[in-house]
């Protein structure tokens, strides 16, 4: 059983890194989109009726 990471193979690492980077990018994009959308909506609610 090969315990350690089979470092010799560049391509295995490359594909995991590529997938990781793409997923991270998607996560970042989704998170910012969500935050911005919520912020814009709250801002609008603020301006419309500041009391709540």
């Amino acid at each position, binding site marked *: *059983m*090969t*315990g*350690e*990471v*089979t470092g*010799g*193979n560049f*391509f*295995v690492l*490359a*594909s*995991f890194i*590529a*997938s990781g980077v*793409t*997923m991270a*990018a*998607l*996560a970042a*994009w*989704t*998170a910012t*989109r*969500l935050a*911005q*959308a*919520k912020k*814009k*909506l709250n801002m*609008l*609610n603020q301006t*419309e009726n500041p009391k709540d």
Partner: protein
Amino acid sequence: MFSTFANPHRFMSLTRPLLPILTVVAAVMLAAGWIWAIGFVPDEKYQGPTVQIMYVHVPAAMVSLAAYSTMAISSLLYLILKHSLADVAAKSAAPIAAALSFICLVTGSLWGRPTWGTYWIWDARLTSMLFQLFLILGYMALRSAFQREQEAARAGAILCLVGAVNLPIIKFSVEWWNTLHQPAGFISLTGDSSLTAEFFWPLMFNLIGMMVLFGAFLIATMRSEVYKRQYEAKLARLNRSTS
């Protein structure tokens, strides 16, 4: 009718707690799955360590197909029920499906380099995935070409369904074409080599992890889409009352 005013409160309140849970579970499962795949899977007799690419490539392929099916089903629901939440689901699933298809293609070509010496081999599954990505990009481009959300939703839904109907035909024709032009004795990426237990379980684990990740992304994107539409609706009401 296009119920822009259908207030998806139930959906929003339901997914509010669900989103963090799914994100954490997905992160943990993927991390564990990847470590399991890289660290503990023995070398396969033909390909040696490069088989480990399968643990990212296959889940990405399957989940991107699941994502496209989500788009197709919600497009169908939107055309029939005209409920705006179905459209939100279809629109939100598109970028995720595109990202997963992209991952599948990149890992597929990275797998090709050590195994067959070239970054792109016209393997049937990879080629079908390529055209699936094209369909998704076309869907997103079409949607962004319309100003009004209502028209974008309807046009997108129709294109998605036409794409969904054609995808099996494309897959069949590519596989048929593949048998003509592909040299025999070609190790396909997955599937036919019957996986023994120690190869199979990490694959299942990674697959479920990717599915959960898709769920988390979908819900997050849908929530931001709902916020965006509520913002635009409220803005329109404000303009109308002040004008």
